[in-house]
């Protein structure tokens, strides 16, 4: 029997065999290393789970209850929220402005776009080492430059008031290029005639920006904002490398706390609970963003 119909479609038997076979490697990996762990993670969060104990007593929602009463958790949540609020708007707006200025095809625009994008391709953990060195008051240059400018030198990463702002700055440095690139791609898809029509109508640059440019790329703007928020809520690398959550827990975030509970204290159940709270938070914030956007999306 042929495996092919007259129209060139694979026969049912062949389809079944190939289809499932082709899917098999990915399916196995996703089942074992993604789907099953999702279930297992929730299961763990309902137990007092340590890797070295043979018995894992069921505790129901006790881990979550403990979280609610844990001042370190609330501190981490607050820091994560502050970090997100401080980073995302600046990142998106700066990325947008840069995209508007640099979305043409001239060589210097292309060159500058590469410059802004370069931090994105670097390893954050590795560059965080460089930043930690840059911001160090003892061996780094910023202290002597501040002094030379007549200002008081600050040990950014060891001062409670400045550590989180320093992390925000470094995060912006890393991610603005990412936002810019997405918005440049979106801007380049905007048909020229829209702008030309606005010029004919007598609109100035600012009016054109607000009434033509921004609305035409609103989907990309939404996308980039949602991505930026989700990434900010998950912040880890730069905090772990630069401050380990210090000084005095002023830069501890949800994921660094989760990591410490999971891999230093080996409290897997508690760490899993933190992860689920994070997941809930991400879902909530994303839904709110999408909802807000739906309302402002008139046409």
């Amino acid at each position, binding site marked *: 029997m042929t495996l092919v119909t007259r129209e060139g479609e694979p026969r049912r038997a062949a389809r079944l065999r190939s289809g499932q076979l082709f899917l098999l490697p990915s399916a196995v990996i996703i089942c074992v290393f993604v789907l099953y762990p999702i279930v297992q993670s929730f299961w763990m969060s309902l137990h007092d789970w340590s890797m*070295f104990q043979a018995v894992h007593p069921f505790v129901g929602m006790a881990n979550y209850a403990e979280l609610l009463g844990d001042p370190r958790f609330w501190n981490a949540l607050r820091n994560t929220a502050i970090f997100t609020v401080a980073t995302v708007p600046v990142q998106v707006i700066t990325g947008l402005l840069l995209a508007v200025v640099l979305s043409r095809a001239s060589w210097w625009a292309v060159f500058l776009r590469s410059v802004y994008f370069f931090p994105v391709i670097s390893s954050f953990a590795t560059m965080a080492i460089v930043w930690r060195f840059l911001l160090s008051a*003892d061996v780094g240059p910023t*202290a002597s430059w501040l002094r030379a400018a007549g200002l008081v030198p600050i040990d950014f990463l*060891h*001062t409670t008031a400045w550590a989180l702002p320093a992390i925000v700055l470094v995060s912006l440095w890393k991610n603005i290029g990412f936002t810019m690139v997405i918005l440049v791609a979106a801007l380049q898809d905007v048909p020229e005639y829209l702008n030309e029509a606005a010029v004919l109508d007598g609109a100035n640059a600012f009016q054109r920006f607000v009434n033509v440019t921004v609305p035409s790329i609103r989907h990309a703007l939404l996308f980039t904002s949602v991505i930026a928020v989700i990434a900010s809520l998950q912040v880890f690398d730069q905090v772990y490398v630069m401050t380990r959550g210090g000084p005095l827990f002023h830069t501890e975030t949800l994921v660094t706390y989760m990591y410490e509970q999971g891999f230093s204290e080996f409290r897997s159940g508690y760490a899993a609970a933190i992860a689920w709270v994070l997941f809930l938070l991400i879902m909530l914030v994303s839904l709110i963003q999408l909802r807000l956007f739906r309302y402002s999306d008139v046409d």
Partner: protein
Amino acid sequence: MHLRTSLIALAAASGLALGVAAQAAGADPVKLTYWSGFTGGDKQAYLDLIKKFNDTHPDIQIDYQLQPWDSIAQKLPTAIASGAGPDLATPDYNVATIQQYVANGLALPLDDLVGQVGKGVLPQAVVDAFSVNGKLYAAPANFATLLLYYNKDLLQAAGIAAPPKTMQELQDDAVKLSNGQDKYGIALADNATIQMWPVLIWSDGGDLITNNCSDLADPKTVGTVEKWSGLIRDKKISPVGLTGQDADNLFAAGKAAFEINGPWAAGEYKAINFGVAPVPVGASDKPVTLASTVPTIVSAKTGHPKEAQEFLAWWLSKDTQAQLSTAAAYAPSRTDMANDASIASNPTVAAFAAQVPYARLYLPTEKDFAKIDTGIFIPAIQSAEQAGNAADALKAANDQLNKLLGCS
């Protein structure tokens, strides 16, 4: 049927082959993996000794792997539990961390070692710290005391003739040697370090825990922390939030005049004209300093318990301890070497060894050591340094600690 007999034949043949291979393997040396955290100024001393062991023991070879301390702390438990971890390891430079390893069944009781070396040879404080329920679970990789390192050039330039003998003198000198910008009187680390603050507290008669209850709110403790944190805030005698490594870097760069540190650091300070002096005496009028001993454990899942303990016995032998002392200025871990010529003839070694009678271990047997040190004590100190609220911070820490210890 046919298949089964074939399988049996195959199994038998493999078993025979393995047996033959095992016989031949008897001639191969036993390979022991050793995860060590000695990445500091004493690194070379250990490397040399390991090499000496490997050269003189063709039947046992040590694969010595250096890792940063926090990396070992995170990775060692699961590595041992998985069965694929090292045979020997130094879990942490803090003694109390072995309690978790023993509790989780990850450390081997060193009965062979005790048989070979005898418990009486080791200092009692060490035996107490390393034993659980009467069994010894770790051998000391070193035994150190802390002294006051001072930068001779900086002191001379400031007109200070001799290192301070009392805490008051140390404080005054530190103030004189700080310029409020980039020169500090003392490099006082408060986290990720062999602890320095407890020395200050002990010298004034205060303590962290007495009789299993918190002493953090004791007026002597509070007074000490207030005095020092006040000087740090007002006179900038030390940066805040230094790790042990930061403090070492600062002293090595000639930017701090004093540092309370152990013998391992001497190797890092080659560019500095430094001296060591006993830790100044505080309000208690009694000399006191910190003792530090790093435990070496044997994995409970090791395939070679005998050989691992043989290495530890060699490590604790007189010759090895003498070489360790001369190379890295450690006091020997044995109690029967006080008059050893090699110790007495080297002034730096003798200086560190002379402090042994006054040296105390820091929280040696606390099961919740990490919670107490990183969760309660250090934040209180840092809060006092940053916000100047020593009394309040210590009161809060005191309550937290009592709650943890189950003390009212």
